[in-house]
């Protein structure tokens, strides 16, 4: 990265010395916004081509290098701003909402401009991308006019003067460039993010459940210390949880590279939560420990799970997630739990925490009822309480995962 920047500066063409700060700011923001996740594939940095599975079909990230023909080399700042914040490309076509522009709409124009300045300094790559691989009629972009009518809030982000500067900064990152709601907020029937009381209360996408990250002490991250939130974002794990799947990738590409200041702000905001957030829902009663499912789950857990997660569900800090008291374990939706038991999972590795431990797949050993049983057990032991897991749900999850 650095040599490219320096070369660009020395050439004195694309950027002037006074632009350096804007470009560097843009580089950092591009990391926070995780642009690379969708726009960096085999063709080169930001050259597009990364397929994104959506409930409606496959979308492919576009080329955002400064290539004149296939990238954004001919775009103006204003056009870029409109694409990022309103979902309209330079030629006027509407972007699919896999591009989280409803979140990016919360960003300041100055921040979006900085990303634009930065993208103009990366190497141009000629790479034609067919973004739209949706089946008919979803491939009709005209449908998006309706979608935007329902879902685009045209947000004008405002700071809250009653809250600290730290909280406000964290909230800006979460709601803007960090686009946390893209995964962690439930979606309405058209796929738009729900807001208000539903904001950040968790959602299931691509057979991963992105858990509640509100300040709810039981189901959200309110029970975590700020240090634990920071550790999770920076390294991909803390005592309770190990990032896997999409979150592992987010940590590796994005939040592990955030500044300590940004991490502290986000932690302060998430820990304290949104103003007027709904009160924590009452915990359900745990399942009867004598039930057949709980009994089978206890036996399976003791024989196979306790060697890592420990008999008391405490796990091993930073290595094997703590199951006791863990919000993700008690989330109403057990999709992520079922997924990691069935298919296994590889924790994201970072330079600071390079281990990347693999949760082994139990799909060949446990049938669907046994998966449900062991999940019932971990969700209703050691003080945990959560609704029973449905065997049929595990059966369809298995089928989905195996045919994907």
């Amino acid at each position: 990265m650095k040599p490219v920047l320096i070369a660009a500066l020395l050439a004195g063409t694309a950027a002037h010395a006074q632009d350096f700060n804007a470009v560097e700011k843009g580089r950092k923001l591009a990391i926070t916004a995780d642009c690379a996740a969708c726009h960096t594939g085999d063709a080169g940095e930001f050259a597009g081509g990364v397929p994104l599975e959506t409930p409606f079909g496959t979308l492919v990230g576009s080329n955002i290098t400064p290539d004149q023909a296939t990238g954004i080399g001919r775009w103006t700042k204003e056009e870029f701003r409109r694409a990022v914040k309103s979902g309209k490309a330079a030629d006027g076509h509407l972007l699919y909402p896999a591009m989280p522009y409803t979140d990016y709409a919360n960003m300041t124009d100055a921040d979006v401009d900085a990303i634009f300045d930065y993208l103009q300094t990366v190497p141009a790559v000629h790479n034609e991308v067919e973004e739209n691989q949706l089946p008919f009629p979803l491939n009709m972009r005209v449908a998006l006019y309706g979608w935007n009518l329902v879902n685009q809030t045209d947000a004008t982000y405002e700071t809250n003067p009653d809250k600290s500067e730290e909280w406000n900064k964290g909230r800006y990152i979460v709601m803007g460039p960090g686009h946390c709601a893209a995964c962690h907020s439930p979606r309405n029937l058209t796929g738009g993010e729900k807001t208000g009381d539903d904001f950040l209360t968790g959602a299931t996408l691509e057979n991963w459940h992105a858990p509640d990250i509100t300040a709810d002490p039981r189901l959200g991250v309110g029970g975590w210390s700020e240090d634990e939130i920071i550790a999770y974002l920076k390294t991909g794990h803390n005592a309770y949880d190990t990032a896997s799947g999409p979150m592992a990738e987010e940590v590796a590409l994005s939040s592990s590279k955030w500044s300590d200041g940004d991490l502290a702000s986000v932690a302060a905001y998430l820990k304290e939560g949104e103003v007027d957030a709904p009160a924590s829902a009452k915990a359900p009663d745990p399942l009867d420990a004598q039930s057949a499912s709980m009994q089978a789950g206890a036996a399976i857990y003791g024989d196979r799970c306790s060697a890592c997660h420990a008999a008391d569900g405490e796990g091993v800090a930073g290595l094997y997630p703590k199951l006791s008291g863990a919000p993700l374990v008690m989330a109403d939706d057990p999709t992520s739990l079922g997924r990691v038991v069935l298919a296994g999972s590889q924790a994201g590795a970072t330079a600071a925490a390079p281990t990347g431990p693999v949760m082994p797949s139990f799909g060949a050993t446990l049938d669907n009822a046994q998966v449900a049983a062991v999940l019932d057990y971990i969700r209703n032991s050691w003080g945990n309480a959560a609704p029973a897991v449905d065997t049929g749900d595990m059966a369809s999850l298995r089928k989905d995962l195996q045919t994907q």
Partner: protein
Amino acid sequence: MSLKPPLLTRRRLLASAAAGLSLISTGAYARVLDGTAPWQPFAANPPEQGWTGTWRFFNEAEARTIGAMADRMIPADDLSVSGREAGCAEFIDGQLAGSYGTGEKLYMQGPFKEGTPEQGDQLPWTMAERYRMGLASLSEYCRKTYSNEFADLDGETQDEVLSGLETGDIALSPIPSKTLFSDILNNVMEGFFADPLYGGNRDMASWKMLGFPGARYDYRPYLMKYNEKLDLEPVSMAGRAAWQTEATQ
């Protein structure tokens, strides 16, 4: 083949999940690795298949002979069922039908010479060949000596034959009787004591007999129980009865 797996990304993870159906493991082919250590959903390295439910190596007569031998080597009594009842013949069939039988993992290049006892087994035949030829010559011996197959002899006579093989007093060819006996005894014991996954040790009979708790993986709760008999229910790699739920088929 040198194949370079791409960095696994959030988006590509989904596209590659279909490949999870084909098992990746230590991999038989050369790979170039850098970046993230390779992993895919459902990745596993399952054991080689043993007994599959049908005879794949033994013919009926051979299976009867091995079963009869297992009955004498591990007789039924108050301690356990017999070796045959525990599935030792089925176990051995599964082994001989696989890489153990073919010897494909062993150095089988010549010249083959009889060395010193310290130089170990130098016979030029795979385990499958040893069983086939050895059981044929045993059958010939029994028919010649007793006008009967081994499996049809009375128990006492069967023991005599086994002892004769064990000491080498009964001469067989080309597989030496002592070799045939020790191979069979070795495999019968493997079948009796291995995980039931491989077709022997039915109902974990031998593990219950010994008090071996099987494929457990966490003894921390029992570590300090010095000089106490634990009587833990054994666990197979396939689980145990307590894993069954009402819904489990």
